[in-house]
């Protein structure tokens, strides 16, 4: 019964979003592709969801147990001029993506359109995903009339469930550390080095695969 209500609620939420969609071209975002996951991560100018902007966005598709790094999406968005060169340097966006002019976008909506094409109906995966989605939604809402409708999986939530398995029969309320580094360490995923959007998305993908495996078992 509960499951039925949940499904109905979800369905009505999706229907609501469908009604909000201004541009029918993006209907494809609603065509859920089972078994296809996209892990994504953004580097932004700051943490204010209203004011700050996306500088880089990396997205990687996960199909079965494979993280398709060879077909990853790495977008770089040119910032309004008042943002200093130093700040860009901090985010490590120089080399590859500037070289690869295809992924350097002057208009942020143009960049996000490529991202939408990439994810289509996939389930979105991320760490503190809500923030990254909010950053994308800020860009698309004015044009599409809605935020991202895709199903979402939060890896820190998965990790919480995974860590709680140990305490199933215990009555203590454990204090579980959900920081990225702790999760990385406890899931024994190798650290791929510096924190940029791509590495974070890759590591998050691997955490996701590992936890998916562990929880289903």
């Amino acid at each position: 019964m509960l499951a039925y209500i949940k499904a109905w609620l979800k369905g009505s939420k999706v229907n609501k979003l469908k009604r909000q969609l201004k541009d029918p071209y993006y209907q494809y975002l609603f065509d859920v592709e089972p078994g296809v996951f996209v892990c994504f991560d953004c580097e932004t100018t700051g943490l204010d969801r209203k004011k700050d902007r996306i500088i880089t966005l990396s997205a990687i598709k996960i199909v079965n147990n494979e993280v398709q790094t060879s077909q990853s999406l790495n977008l770089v968005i040119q910032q309004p001029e008042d943002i200093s060169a130093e700040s860009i340097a901090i985010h490590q966006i120089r080399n590859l993506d500037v070289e690869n002019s295809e992924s350097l976008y002057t208009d942020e909506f143009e960049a996000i359109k490529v991202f939408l094409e990439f994810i289509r109906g996939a389930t979105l995966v991320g760490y503190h995903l809500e923030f990254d989605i909010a950053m994308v939604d800020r860009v698309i809402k004015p044009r599409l009339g809605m935020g991202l409708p895709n199903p979402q999986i939060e890896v820190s939530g998965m990790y919480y469930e995974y860590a709680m398995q140990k305490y199933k029969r215990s009555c203590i309320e454990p204090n579980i550390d959900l920081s990225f580094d702790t999760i990385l360490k406890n899931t024994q995923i190798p650290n791929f080095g510096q924190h940029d959007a791509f590495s974070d998305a890759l590591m998050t993908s691997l955490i996701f695969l590992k936890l998916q495996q562990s929880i289903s078992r």
Partner: protein
Amino acid sequence: MAITQQREFLSQIPPFDHLEKALLNKLADSMDVVYLPHKTLIKFEGPVTENSLYLLIKGKVAEIQDDEVTYRYSVRGFFGDTDILGEGNRLAHYEVQEEAIAYKLPAKLFLQAFEQNHDFAHFFNSSIVEKLNRIHEAVQSATSTEVMMDTVCSAPLQPYVALDKESTLHHAAQLMVERRTDACIVEFKDAEIGIVTSTDILKLLAKNEPELASLRLDELANRPVQTVHEFDYLFNALLKMTRFQIDRLVVRGDQGYRGFLHQKDLMSLFANQSGLVLLKVEQAQSVADLVVLGEQIDGLIANLNRKGIKTHYIAKLVNELHRKMISKLVDFLLPEHLTDKVCIFVMGSEGRSEQVIRTDQDNALIYADDLTESELRELEAFATSFIAALQEMGFPPCPGDIMLSNSDWRMNKTTFMEKVAGWFKNPSDENFMHAAILFDAETVFGQGSWLNQLKQTLQHEKERYSNFLRLFAVSVLRFKTPIGFFGGLVADSESGHEVIDIKKGGIFSIVHGVRCYALESGIEKTNTHWRIKALMDAGVFDKEFGIELGETLNFLNTLRLESMLHQLADGIEVPDNKIRLSELSHMQQDLLKQSFTVVDDFKKRISHHFALDGLL
């Protein structure tokens, strides 16, 4: 960006490091990351182009053929190349033994690299020996070459000056000044040579010798002259100088003599520790100095090994140092009036100069038959303090108590002889072991001739008991070679690691087997490599087999040394003989398997030669 990480990862894995940058990047950018949970099975099926090469980022994967593990792969290892290249109809599959993460490189791109880059293709086509040599080369070119391993002719040599024996000292001095050298060779008949040096002239002057200038060289020349071949290693030259306590060596070539190598020129080449350690032993003033040196030697070993120097040479150098240290120690501790009444010798691996990391000590002492009660008490006190000091220097005590502090191994000459003869009258495993280590013994201090007499007793008794060698050789077969029917390695599981005891698995059989042949042929050399060489010279082993056996032993010893260095680095004080398979590269595992095949062949040969069938 992490794509650069994929490029970096790939560029560090031979043979991918041979690829030109554009191709390497293309390959790296086409890689996906795959998560492989424990027990995942990977099979190569369907068209080749749909398969991939797997490069491990983390975890362990086993290659399995007919239910037997034929390979193990770990971090930076890769598999699938043989499947993609379609070498034979392989039925192997792969199983994840420890949760793994790997890069998957599409076969299409791998094949492209294979077609475009000759070096790259050659790597997969070439034989194991070639692969190994390339690893050696890579190691050596990565670091600057150790001067010690350069050849003598690369050092500055003084010009060769020679006169016949009838010449005068004046003549010699003139020639030395003219040619700017400080030594002159004196030629006797039958190509025998002597040497006169500037030091000799100085001493004669100091003695105010009359008619100095007209002295004849044959009266003055020092003989014999120590020589070194121009293609020998510099460290061998240095060893010779320290062993004979001389300042120069005559360098010989294949056609006559080339010049002089002077110690000061040699030392100027050694700007690093390796040469200095050798000299420091000579300069040590106290037991404490020797303790410090012990620690430096461990650093030296690790250094030489890293530079890709063969374990056999490292062992030779280290054992020379050990013996010098021991003999220095005796100098410090033994009362002077006893020095010519004893013979102190090392046995077993130390006697063979094969112990690199100090894991054991076997030593004994023979004293003169006529020592007084008080002298015996002094000797006992010496024995106790000697063993205590050795322990401080990093030689762990012998678990079987085969040390000169034990009165069973500190005896007068006559009793010792009787003891040895007794081993033959009452054959037992223990007595065989004693005979074996005594046969490897070498004198470190004192009356070397007494040890030789002891060894002659050994030879003599061996002749008397005709069945002895047969029983002695049997222990070659005691341990099973850890190799399976299909040629895979058979490992033991130990706290989650697959390990092989490499001493039991191979080294022991080679060392003891060669010892049996040497005892049979009356070869006096103690080092296994020298014994093999002597057996080749005597025609007992054909050349090919001898070389193969020697190289096999070298390889096994190298693996053991590396494992021990690892263990030392992990803080284990007395490392064991076990090697972890997951820490070996694909190539090393390949060679290990080949090595064990050689060991097995050698065992069969011994079985046949000493008629061991039916004894076990």
